[in-house]
């Protein structure tokens, strides 16, 4: 006999007794009998509430992640398979799991995951790969939620920090240098995006600060912008030109200041040249050169042997930059067409702007694009002007690269006070084209945080991490050359490998929470895949909550008490 039946019998018996006792009541007899019976039914329902059937997706697991709001949790279907990761605050009783892997082991039939809340922590992302079909993201906190920093910044070059600020309408974002001076400021656009530019100084690690200020000027968010500036390498450049011009003057000045080894031969007159270094054009000499820069006049003056040596060296890895500074003579055009650039005279030189391309704050000078039409189907653009026209192309030739350059007066940038922009433009072009002989740097963690796993890859076996206080920890690399490190102190750390040092920055645990939330959300979104199988519908019975029955029963019983109490008019029975 089931307990429910026993209880039902007992309640029925009690109700029967009540009905019998109420049979002779002088007043409200019918009401009292009815109430007795109703109270008995409600008491039974309170003890054994009836169940409902709810439809749910049998193969879907709802995962509540930290940051899930009360509204999100309340909106969840009750029947769904729901688990809560650590850190979820909910009033409802939920199945708590220590991590997603555990949850998947407990719910072996889960084929798809619906993520609700801030997003999956990095620990659970691998377990969720390929399973996430929906992400119901919690709103991001106010502040800087996205940050985009260049991986490598060379000394003296202009660098840009971009990102997105949440809830900063009418406010502004300020970049401060380590001494606290504001070097760039911008009001975020409608999406909250911003992009600030500053100029790096010498080699070394420096912490800039990014402040998000609200419309009323109060600081909403603030975070360190770690910048590890690396020194450059002395590229060996061979510069040949038919005649000196201002572009060459500023280019040579920049090359000398930037520490490049520059050999040059500039024609001054017929048979008269201005030389620096050896500037020889034989195969032996070209083997040590990283990049050769020629214009159409110097190309025209080359003899066949020199051209052969040059192209051979390019196939072997040399970079070749062809500057078109004027009309291209027919034989030169033919040679260059062999190199992949079909060049024709076209409309007159057009004025182009590079303000956006170079991120200039103030309007920069108008520059001239050579009056040429270039047909280079397999070349990648090297530089685009603000109006979208291409000013330079590069394409692979053997192991080297050949580039065509139409911008003849970039020196105006230098004259207009944008010397860092000029240097950065040319340093990037040279880095792009020069002989590939740099080493592959180890990949450093970009968003390391205290007590979170930071991963290094391409590290040597002797790699170690040095903290700011001078403590060393040896890294143990796996077969793929990757190693992990758990930082326990914020600030600059150094990856030591051989005699090389690579600084990287570790954020404090509580620093830039908005950024962490944004990163978690983006990483979770990146896990989203299209559902591979149709939803498996299922139904589940769920007991109704007891408290409405209990309250109703209590109300009835109270009413009964009122009716059955020893009322003054009912004294005949008590007497």
């Amino acid at each position, binding site marked *: 006999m089931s307990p429910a039946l026993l209880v039902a019998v007992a309640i029925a018996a009690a109700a029967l007794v009540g009905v019998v006792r109420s049979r002779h009541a002088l007043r409200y007899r019918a009401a009292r009998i009815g109430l007795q019976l109703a109270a008995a039914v409600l008491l039974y329902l309170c003890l054994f509430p009836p169940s409902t059937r709810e439809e749910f997706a049998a193969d879907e697991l709802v995962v509540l992640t930290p940051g899930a709001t009360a509204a999100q949790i309340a909106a969840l279907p009750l029947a769904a398979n729901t688990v809560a990761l650590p850190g979820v605050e909910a009033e409802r009783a939920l199945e708590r799991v220590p991590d997603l892997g555990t949850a998947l082991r407990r719910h072996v039939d889960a084929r798809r995951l619906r993520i609700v809340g801030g997003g999956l922590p990095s620990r659970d992302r691998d377990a969720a790969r390929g399973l996430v079909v929906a992400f119901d993201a919690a709103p991001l906190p106010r502040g800087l939620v996205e940050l985009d920093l260049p991986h490598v910044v*060379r*000394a*003296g*070059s*202009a660098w840009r920090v971009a990102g997105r600020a949440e809830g900063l309408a009418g406010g502004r974002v300020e970049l401060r*240098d*380590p*001494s*606290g001076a504001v070097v760039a400021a911008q009001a975020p656009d409608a999406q909250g995006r911003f992009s600030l530019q500053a*100029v790096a*100084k*010498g*080699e*070394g*690690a*420096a912490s800039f600060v990014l402040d998000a200020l609200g419309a009323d000027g109060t600081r909403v968010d603030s975070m360190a912008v770690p910048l590890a500036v*690396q*020194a*450059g*390498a002395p*590229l060996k450049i061979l510069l040949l030109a038919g005649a000196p011009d201002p572009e060459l003057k500023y280019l*040579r000045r920049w090359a*000398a*200041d*930037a520490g*490049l080894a*520059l050999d*040059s031969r*500039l024609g*001054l*007159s*017929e048979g*008269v*040249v*201005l*030389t*620096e270094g050896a500037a020889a054009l034989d195969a032996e000499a070209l083997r040590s050169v990283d990049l050769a820069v020629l214009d159409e006049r110097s190309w025209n003056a080359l003899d066949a042997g020199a051209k052969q040596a040059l192209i051979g060296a390019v*196939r072997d890895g040399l970079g070749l930059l062809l500057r078109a500074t004027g009309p291209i003579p027919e034989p030169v055009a033919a040679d260059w067409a062999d190199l992949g650039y079909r060049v024709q005279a076209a409309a007159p030189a057009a004025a182009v702007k590079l303000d956006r391309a170079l991120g200039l704050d103030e309007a920069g000078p108008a520059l001239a694009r050579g009056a040429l039409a270039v047909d280079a189907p397999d070349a990648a653009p090297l530089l685009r002007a603000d109006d979208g026209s291409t000013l330079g192309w590069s394409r*692979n030739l*053997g*192991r080297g690269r050949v580039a065509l350059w139409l911008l003849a007066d970039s020196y105006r940038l230098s004259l207009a006070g944008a*010397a*860092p922009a000029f*240097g950065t433009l*040319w*340093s990037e072009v*040279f*880095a*792009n084209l*020069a002989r*590939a*002989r*740099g*080493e*592959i740097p180890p990949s450093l963690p970009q968003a390391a945080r205290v007590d979170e796993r930071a991963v290094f890859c391409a590290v040597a076996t002797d790699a170690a991490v040095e903290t700011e*206080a*001078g403590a060393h920890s040896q890294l143990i690399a796996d077969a793929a050359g990757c190693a992990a490190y758990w930082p326990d102190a914020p600030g600059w750390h*150094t990856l030591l490998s051989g005699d090389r*040092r690579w*600084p990287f920055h570790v954020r404090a645990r509580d620093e830039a929470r908005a950024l962490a939330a944004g990163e978690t959300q983006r990483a979770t979104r990146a896990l989203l895949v299209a559902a591979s199988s149709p939803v498996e519908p299922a139904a589940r019975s769920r007991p109704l909550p007891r408290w409405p029955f209990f309250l109703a029963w209590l109300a009835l019983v109270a009413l009964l008490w009122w009716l059955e109490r020893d009322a003054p008019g009912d004294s005949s029975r008590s007497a």
Partner: protein
Amino acid sequence: MSPDPRLDRLRSAAVRRRLAIALLGTAPPSLAAVALAARSIGTAAATPVCLAALAVVAAAAWRAWRGVDDAWLARRLDAAEPQLDDSSALLFRDAAALSELQRLQRARVLARLAASDADPRPAWPRPLLLASSALALVLSIVALAWRPHAAGTDTAEREAASRGGDSTALAQVRLDIEAPAYTKIAARTEATLDAKAPQGSRLRWTLRFDPQPQAATLTFHDGSRLALVRDGASWSGERVLASSTLYRIELEGAPPPADDRLHRLDAIADRAPDVRVLEPEKTLTLLEAQQKTWNLAFEASDDHGIASAELQITLAQGGGENVTFKEQTIVLTPVSPGPSSAPQAVASAPAAPAGSEEESPVVARYAYGLDLAALGIAMGDDVIVRLVVADNRQPEPNVTRSASFILRWPAKASSDSAGLEGIVQKTMPAYFRSQRQIIIDSEALLAEKAGLGEDAFLSRSDAIGVDQKILRLRYGQFLGEESETHAQHAQAEEQTAHSAGEHADGASQGHEEEPAHGAADAHDHAASDTPAKFGQEGDVVAEFGHVHDIAEAATLLDAETKATLKSALAEMWQAELHLRQGRPDEALPYEHRALEFIKQVQQSTRIYLARVGLELPPPDEARRLSGERKGLQDRVGSLAAASGDGAPIAQLWQSLAGGASAAGTLDWSAAEAWLHAHESDLPDALAVLAAIDRVRRDPACLECRTSLRDLLWPLLPTPAAASAPRAAPNAAGRAYLDALQAGAGGGR
């Protein structure tokens, strides 16, 4: 009042006892608590505690005193004496209002009371009193024992105590700052080693050390030292603060001071006075008609007081190359010092005495009405004024000069082109007035006609004609006309003159002499005596200066102006014709009309020069490089990298990041030498030097190193943007590129 004096005695005895109990119970703990508070948190801060204690005692006493009333006494008596039959309350009631029986009982009670020795006083509450005195005792002991534990004493002192004998404590620090007398800032005393003081202040240190050193010296960051002189237990020394500096106390025969960082003295430089010109509002004022005086008003302000103000007045007379200057200087006295002339609010500086404030006000206004008539200004003259204000700095005052303000009496024919120089050029240079000169000359010649011979008259008329021709040619150049020489065309002109002579009709006689001409007749004979030479000079200019139609010259003027100028030239032709023929009277109307046209041109036209770039014609390849090429040879360039100023700073900044281990090997001296060399250029070199000193003394201090790096950041040079090769492709990448090339080669 009770009916029996005995009751009153009993009552007052009870009150006294209760008061005594209350006071004995509360006063000792309260006193002890006040003493403890005074010892622990200071006498001043203990005042609230004292008041609270007083309140507690007073409340207890009040309660004891108020608690004794008739009912209480009756209760006590009943309790103390059973014989009273619990009827003591009757004693306090009015006998008249009692019943017979009550009166009887009352009498009995009274009698028994007299017989008994009932005592209504409460007994001494021994445990309570014992507890309160014990509490008082404990509090007193704690108060007495407070000092050794010293929770409120100085942290530095505690550190010193914990370190034992490692460092010397500064038992007393006194820095007397006596600002220079002229600043009128009262001397003040600081109890710190860092201070800000006006430049030139006399600083006097009085220090007391514990333990006593054998010698004490202040070492300044520029290398100078100041030995302190011992005077009893204290050490003192004096120095004049010439510039901001850092210093440290060095002791001999004692451990170094506990606070061993560099201390900073900031010298506040005396600012030069500010001059604000209230009137005139513009730099250039034009003289108004009937203006007799020129009102000037200035306001000068200074941080410590203004010593003197002078108005420099320059009168520039004349025009062209013949300008004479007259200068004079007037010493101004301030008028009605402004409301803000209160003594400057330097911290803790008391108000300067009223007398001295008048002598050198901090803010002073000056007003001066310049009497133009007395100055002797005439039309075309400029008056230039400038206020020179000196403050009372010693030994040399700071002097500020205001901008120059010009009052111009415009010359009559001048037209306003201020502010447009460079863009706008007047069409006509000054010699265009010559047309008027020609008219004047012609009129003068006509007036003298009676006294002259015919030949003389003709030659003078001809000379004026030559002048007219030169003028015409000059105008012609503006129109791009062909130049001509006097000699070539003289004949032709004379020939045409005869045929055109009839044009000079009688209408021209209507022109009257211009009244304004009376002013100048300077031209007359000097010009007319040597007409041929003058003309020849003009010819030379015409011959060599300008050739055929110059495109630029022809496009200088718009079509309308050209038409007007052409009309003027036509009139000049006619005037010249008649002058050459010796008929100046017939030439006069043409001259007048030419003048009118020229004036129209002058008034209507400015030349706007288009801003055009330099567009070079394409080189002629056939002629290129065909010149003399002897001795030409290759040149070797000498491109040197920019010398890196600030390299020591950059090096220090880099090596500071190298972990604590590297700190010992840093090259401080180069950076410090660089900082000393550039101290005056840097905004705050002292802060950097102080930070360097901190790191040097405590290499392990991470925060010190970070703050030093941040301070060094603005000093770092920005190098040229560096470049680096891209990473070499790995084996797979190389193979891919090679395969691409092979495929491309195969495809061709």
